[in-house]
C-alpha cells in the first residue's frame, strides 16, 4: 500500500511521512493533499499561543486528555523556532506530553519554523490538512512562544486560545498591541501562583474597551500543572466552537483564512517565478551594482525585474 492508502486507513507512519514530505516541499505530497482535499474540513483547529514558558504545551496535554475522555481523536502540531544561524532546532514541546505518546488516537508532531516568521511554519498549513485527512476530530497547533507581532495562528485556527500567566509585567504591553483582538478564549494559566485575579481584571478591562461584536472572549483561570479547571476551559473553547457554528461564522472565518492562504501561495509562486528569472542572467547582481553607483534607482530596477514576467 502506498502512503495515500495507508493514510486513509489511519496509519500513523503514513501520516508522519506525509508531513515530512510536505515540510520538504515534495510535489508528490502536495498531490496527495490535492486528491484528498475533499475529505478535509472536519477537524476543528485550536491555536494555542502565548508567551514563552506560559504553559502552552502542558495545557495542550491536559486539554487533550479531556477530549480523549470524550473519545475524540486528537492531532497536535507543536512549533518551536529554527535557529536562523544553523538551520537546526531543538523541539522540546513533547517533554510536557509524554503520557500521550502511547495513545493510539493522539498524534503529536514537532515542527521547526524553518525560516518562517509568524510563530508557525509554512508547512503547518499542509500538516493540518494531513491530520484532518488522517481523521482527527480536533487539531491543536502550539505556536512558538510569541512576542506581539507573530500572530499568524489567527490565519489558521478556528479558535485561538491565548495563554497568559499571572504577574506578566511587560507582557501586559502585548495585550495592548493586538493580542486582544485575536484571542477567542483567554486562559490564565499558573493560577496556582499569586496574581491571577489581577491579571484577569486587567484582561477584562481591556476587553471592555474592545467590545464590538456579539461574542466576548471568556477569561478562565486554570492551573495546567495541578490539572485545575481544565474542564471548564475546554467548555469555554467548545462554547466558542458552537457559537461559530450556530451563527455561520465558522464558514465566514474559514473563508477569510483560505483567502489569506491562497494569496500566500500565489505570492510564493510569483516570487519564485520572478526571482528565478532575475537571478538567471545575474540581473539582480547587475542592477544592485548600478543602483549602488546611482546610475539607476531601486524603483526602476524593480520595474526591470517585473517586466521579465509581464508580457
Amino acid at each position: 500500500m502506498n502512503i495515500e492508502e495507508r493514510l486513509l486507513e489511519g496509519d500513523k507512519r503514513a501520516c508522519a511521512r506525509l508531513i515530512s514530505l510536505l515540510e520538504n516541499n515534495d510535489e508528490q505530497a502536495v498531490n496527495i493533499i490535492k486528491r484528498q482535499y475533499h475529505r478535509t474540513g472536519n477537524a476543528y483547529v485550536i491555536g494555542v499561543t502565548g508567551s514563552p514558558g506560559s504553559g502552552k504545551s502542558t495545557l495542550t496535554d491536559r486539554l487533550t486528555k479531556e477530549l480523549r475522555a470524550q473519545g475524540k481523536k486528537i492531532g497536535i502540531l507543536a512549533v518551536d523556532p529554527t535557529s536562523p544561524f544553523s538551520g537546526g532546532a531543538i523541539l522540546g514541546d513533547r517533554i510536557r506530553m509524554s503520557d500521550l505518546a502511547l495513545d493510539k488516537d493522539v498524534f503529536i508532531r514537532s515542527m521547526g519554523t524553518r525560516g518562517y516568521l509568524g510563530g508557525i511554519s509554512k508547512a503547518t498549513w499542509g500538516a493540518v490538512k494531513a491530520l484532518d485527512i488522517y481523521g482527527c476530530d480536533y487539531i491543536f497547533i502550539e505556536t512558538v512562544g510569541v512576542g506581539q507581532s507573530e500572530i499568524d495562528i489567527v490565519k489558521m485556527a478556528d479558535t485561538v486560545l491565548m495563554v497568559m500567566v499571572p504577574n506578566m509585567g511587560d507582557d501586559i504591553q502585548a495585550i495592548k498591541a493586538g493580542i486582544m483582538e485575536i484571542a477567542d478564549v483567554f486562559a490564565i494559566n499558573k493560577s496556582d501562583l499569586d496574581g491571577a485575579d489581577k491579571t484577569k481584571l486587567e484582561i477584562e478591562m481591556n476587553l471592555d474597551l474592545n467590545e464590538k461584536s456579539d461574542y466576548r472572549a471568556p477569561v478562565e483561570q486554570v492551573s495546567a500543572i495541578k490539572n485545575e479547571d481544565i474542564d471548564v476551559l475546554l467548555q469555554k473553547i467548545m462554547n466558542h466552537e458552537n457559537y461559530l457554528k450556530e451563527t455561520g461564522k465558522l464558514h465566514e472565518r474559514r473563508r477569510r483564512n483560505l483567502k489569506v492562504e491562497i494569496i500566500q501561495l500565489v505570492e510564493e509562486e510569483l516570487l519564485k517565478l520572478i526571482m528565478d528569472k532575475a537571478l538567471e542572467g545575474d540581473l539582480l547582481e547587475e542592477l544592485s551594482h548600478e543602483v549602488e553607483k546611482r546610475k539607476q534607482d531601486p524603483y526602476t530596477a524593480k520595474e526591470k525585474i517585473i517586466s521579465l514576467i509581464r508580457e
Partner: protein
Amino acid sequence: MDKPIRVLVAKPGLDGHDRGAKVIARALRDAGMEVIYTGLRQTPEQIVAAAVQEDVDVVAMSILSGAHNHLFPKVVRLLKEEGIEDVLVLGGGVIPEDDIPGLKEAGVEGIFTPGTPTKEVIEFIKGNVKK
C-alpha cells in the same frame, strides 16, 4: 533548502540526569539538525511511538544507570516490530567496553561513551543516516 536531519534525543531509564543529552541536543542543533527532545525517563515504547510520529532519521539515547544492555536493544526491536528499518539508532552513556560488541550486534549502530567529542557524533550521523 536541504532537508534537515531529524533526530530524536531520548533519555530512557530511571536516572535523572539529562545534562549529557542536552549538550548533544545543542550540538546537533548547531550542526543544522532538528532535534526532538523528549525528556527524562522515557520507556522504550514511548521512544518508539515518538520516533514514528516524528518520522525521525535518527534515534539517539543516553543512559547512565547501566540498563543499556536491556533498553537499547529493546528500542531496536520495537522499531523493527513497527516495520521501521531505516532509522539509525545510537546509544551514549557510561557503557563498558565489553558491552559494545553485543549492542552493535543488536542493531545499535553507534556507541558513544562520555568524553566523545560532539563533532564525532555529528560526523557519524551525517555519514550513516539511511533516508
